[in-house]
């Protein structure tokens, strides 16, 4: 039991921190633009594919350095030459644009890399068990994923709260005109934040690619959960996104590892249904089976009981 709990917690941390890397960029971009970027997870996918291609020639580590850079530059170019123009036409136009961009990136990925899953491998140097507990191994690569994610979280937190550029970004998000009047180039700052946000998604893609598999549908798989996280965390809140990411990661991990099912719950209240009952499928559901829909269930509950999310502020 303890073994299941410890490994579920570690796996939940890996997933949660990975989700945070995506959610942090998305929620920062939302704070800035006031609109959700539906193409955000597509940048995560691009990170994985660019890293895969680079790793074929220069190895995994070069991919880890250059793929997020390429994705970040691509994100900045998208903001500067497309999104900024669309922004002038309002939020609906922006939403439609980011939707279109997501489809475009998915098609482009299939065009250039094909529809098959890529054999993107983690580096050999991390191909060993970090530790063995209760006879079960925890891979060094997963430990590396945790280290990178925590490092990025600390770096991001430091830059945003302690550095001058972080102070300017915070102020520009809430008072763009005042910040411009003080001599700061707000459009350039926004482009930079968009670029860094997409680069973070790129990093997530680079490190998740070898574990979660690199295929053209990977953006769709993770994209919807990332949206759930930023809504649960509170739109625009970095702290809320962090809590929600860990919450979803751990929740899914515990659900998958548990053996609890509907029959157990029904037995607790003294109910039992026969095998030939018309709703047998429903009465025999297990928690691992419903694990994938738990984030969305949580989203619905949050929207009903706390629409602003964990740390979001109600609009005035």
């Amino acid at each position: 039991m303890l073994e299941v709990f410890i490994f579920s917690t570690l796996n939940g941390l890996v997933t949660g921190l990975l989700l945070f890397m995506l959610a942090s960029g998305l929620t920062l971009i939302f704070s800035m633009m006031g609109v959700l970027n539906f193409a955000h997870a597509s940048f995560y996918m691009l990170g994985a594919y660019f890293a895969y291609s680079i790793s074929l020639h220069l190895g995994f580590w070069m991919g880890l350095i250059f793929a997020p850079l390429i994705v970040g530059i691509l994100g900045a170019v998208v903001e500067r030459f497309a999104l900024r123009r669309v922004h002038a036409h309002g939020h609906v136009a922006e939403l439609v644009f980011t939707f279109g961009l997501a489809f475009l990136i998915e098609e482009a990925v299939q065009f250039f890399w094909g529809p098959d899953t890529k054999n993107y491998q983690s580096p050999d140097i991390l191909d060993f068990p970090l530790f063995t507990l209760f006879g079960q191994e925890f891979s060094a690569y997963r430990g590396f994923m945790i280290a990178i994610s925590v490092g990025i979280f600390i770096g991001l937190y430091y830059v945003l709260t302690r550095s001058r550029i972080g102070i300017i970004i915070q102020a520009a998000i809430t008072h763009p005109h005042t910040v411009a009047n003080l001599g700061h180039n707000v459009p350039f700052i926004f482009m930079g934040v968009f670029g860094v946000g997409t680069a973070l998604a790129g990093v997530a893609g680079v490190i998740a690619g070898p574990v979660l598999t690199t295929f053209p549908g990977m953006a769709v798989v993770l994209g919807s959960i990332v949206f759930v996280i930023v809504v649960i965390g509170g739109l625009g809140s970095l702290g809320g996104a962090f809590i929600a990411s860990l919450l979803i990661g751990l929740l899914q991990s515990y659900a998958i590892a548990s053996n609890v099912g509907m029959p157990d719950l029904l037995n607790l209240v003294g109910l039992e249904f026969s095998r030939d009952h018309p709703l047998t499928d429903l009465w025999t559901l297990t928690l691992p089976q419903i694990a994938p829909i738990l984030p969305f269930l949580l989203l619905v509950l949050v929207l009903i009981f706390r629409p602003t999310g964990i740390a979001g502020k109600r609009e005035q």
Partner: protein
Amino acid sequence: MLKVRNLHAYYGKSHILQGVDFSVEEGEIVSLLGRNGVGRSTTVKAIMGEVAPQGSILFKGEEIAGKPSFEIAHRGLGYVPENRDIFPTLTVRQNLLLGIKSGQVQGRWTIDEMFDMFPNLAERADVHGGVLSGGEQQMLCMCRTLMGDPDMIMIDEPTEGLAPKIVEQVGDLLEEIASRGVAILLVEQKLSVALRISHRLFVMGHGRIVYEGTPDSLMQSDDIRAEWLEV
């Protein structure tokens, strides 16, 4: 320093500024007076690029009409808006640091000097700007603009909603700023401050300048005050 010629500005179809002409020289304190709604705030917003201007705005001999706000600020023109716009979740010190432009060399003002001038701000250096009193916020807003080392600042209604004693302090600060060679364009409704510290005054009415003079000449022009200033 600043020469505004035939400045027009619109809010939608409303023609707010209808050919404004005035100038501010180096180290001078110039006040822009007038009743509410005559276009005083719109004039400074148009100069700063917050409202689309039509006409000519020369700052230090260069045309700035239509340039982005950050570029105008970089050329040395500071702006303290009417609503103060303190960043409420940042500390007093962080608010001041925000005033320093990227790549700026040491200017005429330092944070320590600001704190010497305003011990109240020094005592509250690490508290959030949002909890300061109205007077402290006004001082912080002016100090923040000065941290960018401007050659001229435009201040919109700095005494609005402040107690008489604080109004006096604001006036003293403006004189101190001017004594260091910074030109000031003061947008005011309160005659007392403007008459005390200004070198020249412009009165606005119906979107244009209707009077230009000195504090003494305005005090002698009862008809101008009655027609354009008194309520």
